[in-house]
């Protein structure tokens, strides 16, 4: 009751001010860098709670009481200004851009905090940095943008999965992908029923709708997400309307893309000669020859570059139209976008249409409601030929197919083997690409609604209900004349997948300032989350007529259906407390208790606490107002998080249905483990945030992250007969330690010329501390692997036989055995000899593999952005880099194969004469041993990539005004412009194990280049218009 009286008193006070003799001050606010009007600048009287803001033309007017002395002008991204109120009723203000971003607000999960008062390690990437880039999803644009966030786009195929790793790999055999939360709703990143082509679940989100991405890195930030926080959390906030400003923007770009690199393979003449030389060295007949392709009785010559045949210049275009508007009570943001991305690989295409509507409305002064919604449709034309390393896949087929046969003869695809006397299992790559299809159609609704009640000053109750509902329809067709479809008489397959995640979060927050110096923020909440997925699969083969390429049931003689259903759920309770003393000493504590349906009832709930302290030392008297250090904060945090990327029922022993032809049966699907409990990641973070000379912002962090009780799919001998040869257990530990450094500065900031630099670099070193009771190696689940996790070493250290070069005298391949002795292999006799003595020795076997202290995970990675602006011209150069890592190039190995598959031109330097120094042993048909996996194909991957170059021109303000526009900018950009690297393959950032593999393959067996399509290099011309 006393409170209420206080409020009434305050309200009366306000009213009494308003009743005094006011005057109106008006004016216009512009930016110093280009003289453009700044909409949305907050203007208020010093000391007052409310004020006004500028409209889209930068103009404002504000009623002030007679005694008013100072007006404050504040705008995010600009230095605040104070102007004294004189007798003049007009105040025009020019704001200087600020590169001191500590004044920004950061989202910490269920609440927001001023960046300067934040106690945890959060990296913020603004929507501007990732909008209008010629890529299909925003996550691809995060590479190199934030320290400690490694982003790996695994291939150049549209929809290729993107791996995001925050501060290293957080698990060995469970998922390491961060949790992604869009406007408060955790979204699913699961497979959505794709068949042979992957789709990126984040590609459904229109990048231009994103206002900010806040990447939570340390435990103080992630512990509030408890069991889902160990791999980091990315919070996406979409754009909102602002009070008093109506802004309409139209953004477009169009251009084309092309493969950023090609692999040189043999042409027809070279092929004939190399293959026949292999045969003759092995005492076999010649098999490669030109043939009579058109059947006219004479031998024709053909030379086909299959890579050229399946690649093209792919056209891209994007349109985005957005309106944002607002009043004191209601703000609206609406957008519509369309992206059409034709990849450089024929057929491969993505089209996305999306619409967004965000509304916030204050019903009265204590009740606020809002919605954030997006609907999108994503149509993806994948490769019906197959991708990667499948026989007909791209680029496997184009690499290895006969170069000495034509694409078409008399208008029809050529499917024979020409004059070659041995057939290849590979179909004509162009024919299979053009005649098969594999399309994917996702429709996704992502939305949330909230209601917020302010009961008492500082006390808010908020309830947010969100859904992530998506359907995916895969349709696939294999033509009856080529490849796998031929034997089946044509095949159609469809998968319909539907998934629904609902999430209901209820929070109570209480903010209170006591005696001016003590600020307290309290948060309590409960959150419930349920995820349900079901799918239907159908397949039909044996088309009555090749006319039928769609799923028309009765047109096919054999059909089969399948389906499945999965559910899981969380219930969570959490709380946090922040305390700030004079904005100088800051403390935070958080706690979250999560229960997950997949655990046994006894171990279902886990508790995840964290604590953080920070000291803004520049607020101390002895440092206040010093000219060097304008802002400085030291912070430390420690906390616990978990990992719930562990499947639906990891602890429950189950039997699953199986079929034995027409008979239905059941079999053990999971041996189960009732003792399974949460995996726990403890993380210490010590960091400094500082601003020097009011221009240079620095963030420095040290972290030490240790995961215990790993939920490990512990490999067990196959003799136990467990599915996938593994049991899920809490064993082992890994650690990641590292430094992160981010700096941004504006070295030059004059009226006509501005230069802005953003640099970040992170160092991470992982270590496997222990595994099972015997500290056994943990291997990827694939039968063929090149790297392992061994206690005492980095995660993903390569484990290979060592190559010892080609013997110059004999031309034979040499390897080192486990003890370092050189052994030479003769494919003609199958014998191994000691090259020094000529004595027969035991064969090099897999026991001669050694662990190399070389991991696929870069130790250093980061990015450098340089933005220049001269008058109306802007130039942006964004470089991404990574060093200290290795790539295993299995593509290169296979392209040196001693079979009738085509080879890379590297094979042309094979040994021919004694004394010849070369890296390629003597040709010998059928010799698989000399090109076996070894360090011969392990290469350093260090690279610097010109990720994005952009040159823009903005129309002068005067001309814009005449056209009644607020902004017109034309720009030219090149994505993946260049890559400087010593790596010989297509892309040092490669990761063939991204697609369709197990988590163990992704975490331990990354860095393998196995038939990865190149990244696209994209050129685009764009236009931004606003009014």
């Amino acid at each position, binding site marked *: 009751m006393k409170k209420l009286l206080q409020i009434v008193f305050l309200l009366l006070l306000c009213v009494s001010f308003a009743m005094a003799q006011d005057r109106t001050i008006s004016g216009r606010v512009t930016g110093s860098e280009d003289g453009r009007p700044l909409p949305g600048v907050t203007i208020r009287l010093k000391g007052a709670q409310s004020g006004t803001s500028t409209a889209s033309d930068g103009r404002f007017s504000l009623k002030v009481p007679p005694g008013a002395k100072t007006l404050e002008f504040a705008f995010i991204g600009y230095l605040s200004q104070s102007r004294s109120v004189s007798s003049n009723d007009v105040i025009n203000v020019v704001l200087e851009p600020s590169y001191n971003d500590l004044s920004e607000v950061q989202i910490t999960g269920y609440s927001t905090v001023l960046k300067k008062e934040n106690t945890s390690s959060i990296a913020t990437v603004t929507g501007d940095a990732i909008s209008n880039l010629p890529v299909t999803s925003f996550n691809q644009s995060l590479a190199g943008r934030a320290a400690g966030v490694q982003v790996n786009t695994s291939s150049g195929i549209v929809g290729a999965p993107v791996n995001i790793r925050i501060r290293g790999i957080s698990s060995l055999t469970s998922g390491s992908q961060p949790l992604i939360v869009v406007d408060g709703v955790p979204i699913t990143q699961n497979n959505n029923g794709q068949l042979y082509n992957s789709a990126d679940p984040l590609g459904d989100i229109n990048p231009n709708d994103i206002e900010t991405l806040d990447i939570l890195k340390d435990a103080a930030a992630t512990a509030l997400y408890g069991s889902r926080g160990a791999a980091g959390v990315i919070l996406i906030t979409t754009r909102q309307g602002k009070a008093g400003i109506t802004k309409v923007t139209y953004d477009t770009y169009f251009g084309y893309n092309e493969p950023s690199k090609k692999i040189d393979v043999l042409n027809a003449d070279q092929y004939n000669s190399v293959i026949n030389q292999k045969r003759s060295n092995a*005492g*076999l*007949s010649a098999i490669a020859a030109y043939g009579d392709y058109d059947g006219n009785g004479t031998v024709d010559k053909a030379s086909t570059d299959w890579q050229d045949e399946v690649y093209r210049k792919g056209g891209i275009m994007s349109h985005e139209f957005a309106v944002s508007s607002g009043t004191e009570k209601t703000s609206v943001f609406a957008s519509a976008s369309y992206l059409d991305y034709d990849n450089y690989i024929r057929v491969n295409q993505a089209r996305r249409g999306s619409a967004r509507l965000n509304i916030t409305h204050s019903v009265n002064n*204590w009740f606020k409601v809002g919605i954030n919604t997006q609907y999108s449709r994503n149509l993806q034309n994948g490769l019906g030929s197959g991708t990667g390393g499948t026989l007909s896949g791209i680029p496997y087929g184009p690499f290895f197919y006969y170069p000495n046969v034509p694409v078409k003869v008399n208008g029809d695809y050529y499917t024979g083997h020409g004059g070659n*006397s041995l*057939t290849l299992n590979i179909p004509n790559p162009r024919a299979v690409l053009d005649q098969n299809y594999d399309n994917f159609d996702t429709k996704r609704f992502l939305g949330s609604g909230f209601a917020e009640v302010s009961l008492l000053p500082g006390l808010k*109750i908020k309830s947010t209900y969100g859904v992530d509902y998506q359907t995916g329809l895969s349709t696939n067709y294999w033509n009856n004349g080529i490849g796998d479809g*031929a*034997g*089946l008489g044509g095949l159609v397959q469809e998968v319909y997948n539907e998934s629904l995640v609902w999430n209901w979060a*209820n929070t*109570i927050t209480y903010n209170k300032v006591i005696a001016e110096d003590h600020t307290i923020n309290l948060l309590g909440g409960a959150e*419930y989350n*349920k995820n349900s997925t079901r799918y239907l699969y159908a397949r039909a*083969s*044996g088309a009555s007529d090749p006319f039928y390429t769609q799923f028309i049931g009765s047109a096919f003689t*054999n059909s*089969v259906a399948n389906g499945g*259903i999965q559910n899981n*759920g969380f*219930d969570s309770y959490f709380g946090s407390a922040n305390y700030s003393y004079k904005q100088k000493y800051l403390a935070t504590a958080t706690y979250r208790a999560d*229960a997950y*349906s997949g655990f046994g009832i006894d171990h*279902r709930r886990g508790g995840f606490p964290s604590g953080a302290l920070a000291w803004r030392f520049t607020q101390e008297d002895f440092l206040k107002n010093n000219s060097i250090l304008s802002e400085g904060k030291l912070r430390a945090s420690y906390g616990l998080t978990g990992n719930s990327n562990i499947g639906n029922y990891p602890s*429950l*022993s*189950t*039997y*699953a*249905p199986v*079929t*034995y*032809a*027409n*008979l*239905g*049966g*059941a*079999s*053990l699907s999971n041996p189960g483990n009732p003792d399974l409990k949460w995996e726990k990641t403890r993380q210490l973070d010590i960091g400094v945030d500082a601003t020097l000379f009011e221009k240079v912002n620095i963030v420095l962090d040290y972290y030490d992250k240790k995961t215990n009780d790993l939920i490990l799919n512990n*490999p067990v*001998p*196959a*003799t*136990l*007969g467990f*599915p996938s*040869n593994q*049991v899920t257990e809490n064993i082992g530990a890994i650690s990641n330690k590292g430094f992160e450094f981010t700096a941004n500065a504006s070295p030059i900031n004059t009226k006509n010329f501005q230069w802005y630099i953003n640099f970040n670099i992170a160092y991470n070193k992982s270590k496997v501390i222990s595994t099972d009771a015997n500290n*056994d*190696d943990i*291997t990827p689940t694939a*039968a*063929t692997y090149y790297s392992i996790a061994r206690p005492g070493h980095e995660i993903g250290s390569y484990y290979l036989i060592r190559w010892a070069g080609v013997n110059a005298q004999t031309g034979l391949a040499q390897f080192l055995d486990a003890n370092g002795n050189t052994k030479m292999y003769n494919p003609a006799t*199958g014998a191994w000899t000691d090259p020094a003595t000529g004595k027969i020795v035991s064969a090099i076997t*897999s026991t001669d593999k050694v662990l190399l202290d070389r991991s696929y995970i870069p130790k250093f990675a980061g990015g450098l952005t340089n933005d220049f602006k001269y008058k109306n011209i802007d130039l942006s150069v964004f470089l991404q880099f990574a060093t200290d890592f290795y790539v295993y190039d299995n593509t290169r190995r296979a392209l040196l194969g001693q079979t009738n598959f085509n080879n890379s031109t590297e094979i042309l330097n094979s040994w021919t004469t004694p004394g010849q120094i070369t890296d390629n042993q003597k040709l010998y048909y*059928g010799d*698989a*041993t000399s090109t*076996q996996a070894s360090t011969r194909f392990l290469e350093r991957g260090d690279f610097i990539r010109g990720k994005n170059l952009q040159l823009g021109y903005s129309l002068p303000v005067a001309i814009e005004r005449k056209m009644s526009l607020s902004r017109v900018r034309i720009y030219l950009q090149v994505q993946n412009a260049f890559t400087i690297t010593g790596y010989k393959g297509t892309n040092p950032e490669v990761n063939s194990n991204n697609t369709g593999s197990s988590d163990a393959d992704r975490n331990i067996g990354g860095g393998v280049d196995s038939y990865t399509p190149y990244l696209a290099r994209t050129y685009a011309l764009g236009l931004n218009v606003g009014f």
Partner: protein
Amino acid sequence: MKKRFLSYISLAAAVILLQAACTKVTDIQPVDRISSDLSFTTPDKINADVIGVYDGLQSPEFLAGRSLVYSDVLGEDVIDITGFFNTIFHYTMLASDPYAANEWTAGYAAIQKANRVIEGIQANLSVAGTSANTYIGECRFARALAMLTLVDHYAHPYNFTADASHPGIPVIIKSSVNFTSADLVARNTVAEVYTQMISDLQFAEANLLASQGDANVQRANKYAASALLARVYLYKGDYANAKLEEEKVIGAGVYRLNADQSASFGPGNYQSSESVFSISNNAKDNPNTNNALPMHYSPISAGGRGDLVISKTFLNLPGFAADDKRRKLMTVNGNYTYTAKYPDVATRGDWAPIIRYPEVLLTAAEASVRQTNVVDQTALDRLNLVRDRSRVSATQYTMAGFPTAQSFIDAILLERRIELAFEGHRIEDLGRNKQGVTGKQADDYSPITPVPYGADHLIFPIPQYDTKLNANLKQNPGY
């Protein structure tokens, strides 16, 4: 006051909201699988679990086709022209070879499925009722078949040492719920492996039904157990018992040869009168494009993968008449001849033949003569029964044509080679006769260096995956 009232309403509402969504969200029982404690609680569930054991045998890496292929690729009657099985064909496998790893994994998966179901039934005998021993018999049949397949590929033949004391495979007849040091098993001797298989098959023979009704051939009956037991005895060199077992099958009178071999293969013929046991596949459940028998053995132009063709060594075998009707099950395509025993490229549903009646007849004949060292009329009749249905212009075998027992045995082995070609018998028939591989040909039919009996790479490596996790598991020499 109104505002305060509303505040209380809101607060109450919020409290209710927080309460309403109780922990139900996390109380989710699976609908797509059954908790293991419930998996033997009804007769239907037990029947399903037994079918699950066959499903283990039907793995694409095992007896759905691949294991048969490996036995033939190791021999000289097929040529791998695409290099798909290069490491097996050329005996250049490494310990990390995926073929070896996958077959081993699939084999032990099947063995352990059998173990688990046997234990599950034994713990729920009241549920299984009178069928308990029949079900256990099926499991023990499956376990023996899996062990035989593995010991064939991962160990030298029984006769490699005088007492078969050379390393076989681990004999595992008890399942594990967890990985403990008890699972760090060593390899048993080949003799011990055979003892276990014989015990399993004797139990199966005693307890299985004479017919499995509609599921005959794809599920084992009593005679399948006898016939498999006969094969085990034959490989062991125990000819008296081999003959005894085959006589049980022949004497039952339930099997007879089809008029023509072509009536034993292809869609519609999988449960013919000469099919004793096969691993079934169909359009829905088959080893797919990279593992199915029809894919490996059919030319690319017919929609197959065209990996394996018939060697000229086989096509030109002395004694394999040019008009032998079994040549009808061969297709000439360009330079190469393909077997047509597995024609169902369209659905990849060809069943993998494990035991056909001709094998029963030929084993009975061979065992009889080997046991007595005298060619008897019954043995001759049985050989002729098999040979005559495909014979056109060649002369019929007579007693006079076999001056020695060995000459008869040679004729039997020739007949087995022709009759059972591409059904996964070749390398075992060579090994049990202490013969190496000769006459193997490259893709241009040029000769490949012969490999002597007992050579290291005639058998697979124990997968590196397992030897790494289990130090007790000793690797085969040469790997």
